[in-house]
């Protein structure tokens, strides 16, 4: 009797342990996919040309530098620079673009890969990159090949105003166009989450009109305020950076791939005492709490490693992530690739039509049986009509 009791106790303890372990495992696994993204992209755009707009190119290159340092490869970065400052005739230090005066930091570096350069940076090209509507001849380096598990960082800088951003001194993009482009991206499942940063005058006006989900936006100044430039370098003769991006760069230099800094820290970058303008942000369209969003979710490309002691069946890739034999505690919904985003909860949509498949073996067999029975009942001479 006590032996049975002992065994029962042991079983209970072991099953408890298993359940506990499993719970721990599954919460870790749940956490594993709770951020939702598997790859990172960055679209960094500088929209102004001419030598006296050196600082805009330096802004973009400093974000490029941070993003590359934190792990996003060139193949996942679309860098658009409207003018070439490093090789401009007026640059006393050719092949360099400095962000700090006294030439402390050369953000041009040795391995810059500019995808859209000079006059290729237009509103049309920018929107086509975002929405993916590019001609078939466009090379891969000029495409944003994101999917619905991509976290995208979009950084814009240049001269702007209330509701628009000036491209190349000849055209403008309005905040409505940008909001519509993001909606197109959402409907085409081209992003999981998107972080939009803009450093121009009256930058907050550019994110006022967003209406697609999973967007977080930061701007360097409110409507009616100007974003100011930071320091001039007397040797080069121009302003090197804008204040907001300068302090953003200083903040990002402290971030390393394993850093746990979150978005609330990013919102605190460059308060009004340093920036003179009031930086703004918008998080109402974002589903997660900004405090739980890591900087590296957007600025870095972090590959997570999961160590498991059990064998995992890898032959059917559409299986649910963790399969524990015999445990039906946590019901993980079996999701197909396209339906991984809980779309129906966010927008109302008609369910997609299933494609027609030719009948498989069982149904064929069933129909043959029915036919044979039919002809047997009504005589074999009717078979002659078929053959």
């Amino acid at each position, binding site marked *: 009797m006590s032996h049975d009791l002992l065994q029962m106790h042991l079983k209970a303890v072991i099953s408890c342990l298993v359940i506990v372990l499993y719970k721990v495992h599954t919460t870790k696994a749940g956490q594993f996919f709770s951020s939702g993204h598997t790859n990172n992209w960055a679209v960094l755009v500088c929209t102004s040309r*001419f*030598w*006296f707009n050196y600082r805009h190119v330096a802004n973009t290159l400093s974000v490029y530098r941070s993003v590359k340092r934190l792990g996003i490869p060139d193949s996942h970065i679309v860098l658009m620079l409207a003018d070439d400052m490093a*090789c*401009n*005739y*007026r*640059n*006393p230090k*050719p092949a360099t673009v400095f962000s700090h005066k006294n030439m402390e930091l050369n953000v041009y570096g040795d391995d810059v890969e500019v995808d859209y350069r000079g006059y290729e940076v237009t509103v049309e090209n920018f929107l086509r990159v975002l929405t993916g509507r590019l001609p078939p001849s466009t090379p891969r380096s000029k495409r944003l090949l994101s999917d619905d598990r991509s976290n995208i960082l979009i950084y814009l800088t240049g001269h702007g105003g209330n509701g628009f951003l000036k491209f190349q001194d000849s055209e403008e993009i309005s905040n409505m166009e940008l909001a519509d482009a993001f909606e197109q991206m959402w409907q085409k499942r081209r992003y999981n989450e998107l972080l939009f940063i803009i450093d121009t005058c009256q930058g907050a006006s550019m994110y006022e009109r967003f209406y697609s989900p999973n967007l977080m936006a930061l701007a360097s100044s409110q409507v009616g305020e100007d974003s100011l430039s930071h320091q*001039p370098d*007397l*040797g080069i*003769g*121009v302003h090197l950076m804008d204040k907001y991006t300068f302090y953003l760069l200083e903040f990002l230099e402290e971030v390393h791939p394993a850093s746990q800094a979150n978005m609330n820290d990013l919102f605190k970058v460059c308060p009004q005492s340093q920036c003179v303008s009031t930086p703004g942000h918008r998080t109402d369209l974002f589903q997660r709490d900004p405090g739980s969003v890591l900087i590296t979710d957007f600025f870095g490309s972090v590959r997570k490693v999961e160590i498991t002691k059990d064998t995992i069946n890898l032959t059917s890739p559409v299986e649910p992530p963790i399969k524990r034999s015999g445990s039906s505690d946590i019901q993980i919904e079996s999701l197909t690739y396209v339906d991984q985003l809980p779309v129906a909860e966010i927008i109302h949509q008609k369910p997609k039509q299933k494609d027609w498949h030719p009948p498989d073996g069982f149904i064929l067999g069933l129909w043959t049986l029915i036919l044979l029975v039919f002809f047997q009942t009504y005589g074999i001479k009717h078979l002659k009509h078929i053959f």
Partner: protein
Amino acid sequence: MGLLSDPNRRKALTGLLTRLNTPICIVCYLAGIVWFMGLAFEPFTLRTYMSENAMGSTMVEERFSSGERALSLAKEFDAHKRKAGGMPVEWLVKAMQSRGLEVFTQSFSRKLPFPDENKERYMVRGTNVYGILRAPRAPRTEALVITAPCSPGNTNNQAVALLLALAQYFRNQIYWAKDIIFLVNEHDLIGTQAWLEGYHHTNITGMEYSPLQGRAGSIQAALSLELSSDVITSLDLVLEGLNGQLPNLDLANLFYAFCQKLGVLCTIQGKLQRNDWDTAEGYTHAAQTMMLMVLKQACGRSWGDHGLFLRYHIEAASVRGINSFRHYKTDATTIGRLLEGMVRKLNNLLERLHQSYFFYLLPSLSRFVSIGYYMPAFGLLAVILLLRALDLWVHLGAPALAAVDGVTEAEQPSSPGVLTVLTPVVISHLTGVALYLLPVHLQEMAVEHFPVSETEAVVLTAIAIYTAGLALPHNTQRALYAVVMVLLSPAFTILYCVFIYQELIEAPVSVSEGWMLFLSVISQGILDHALYGSLVYPLLALFIYPCWLMFWNILFWN
């Protein structure tokens, strides 16, 4: 009914016009004068500011340091100049070549219509030497020009030497986006005119020149240097060019900004800026500066070597070093740095200077009056003409307005025939044409018959034709009016201007000296017109003088 189509209202209006005509005219005239003089009052002016975005502020680091070397080079240049008896062409060519410039020369010659007594030349032959510093990385589409004149005697040696020192320093920099042309011109304005005509393939003034072998693209801006002493206490900016044309105000703003950055004393019209604008002396100082600028523009002559560039839409200014024995002295290195800063900022330009004003008056270097503010004064003066014309028209159209004691005299004034009106007009204009053409053409005849030199012949012929136009039958009843008319004639206006100018530059002259100056002004005006295409002499001779003659005719109409 409208204001002008209702006959009653119209009659009332015209009655008002004819009654109040003279008072309104006097008020307008006084208002115009007061407005114009009031422009020099500092609260009515605007502070100068840089309009061109590409030039930005003065945030460059100037590193020019060879001021002393420039001064020793000046002595060398002086020695070679004396040895060559003019422009030391070979030495200059070698000096520029050793500094890494592409050197070319241009020879030119010009025979003046009559000898120039101020500069003692008649048949001018010379050579311009210029070196082009090619931008190391830029295409050869744009250029900047720095020029220094090679003058006889002791003048401008330091300017040429500083030019060469700057050339050497600039050659070592890699941030040039435009080619820089260093030009040393002989015979000041004539040489510059020859070079510009050769560069732009024009021939406006009948100069003979050899074509330019080397070219650099379209010139965006030019600076002319005039330095004649080792020690400089202030820098004077000269803006007035040919026909009163001015460079873009941004060039003056650039100069002033760098003067402030480097702590160099900068003047305009030779006058230093004062701080006490609310005192009488401060106001008169500003008014004097402004009036000097007006007079200099009015005489149509180019007051520096830069003036001829303006015609080709090249913004140019002259920087003149002045040694006025002040306590605070500036050395050549600082001046070199100022020029380096200015040229570096001009290098940043993407387009020609066009953002700031082209028509302005400067009561001081830091304050300006734009055309929108000084044109209304002239508008008020022009309104007087309009009012007078309307008054005459009203009188002509309604002779019955003159009512005497209720009895209207229905007099029909005999309308004058066309011939009687046309004859004075034609004669006045013919006299004007004679005044324009004859002095230069008749100088040989005058020299034969009278014991005068060619220049004096020309001037005296002009005066003779001028007074001959006054020969009209006149009655002594209008003697007072005649005297007033003569005193307001163009010639006397020029005479007054000469005296006023001398007063303003604080070098007043006696009557006889003033008269000699007046004669030389006439000869210089004719020469400027012949050599560079100045328009003041033709304007005076062909337009203003005939108009005044017609007034004279009307005065003595019988």
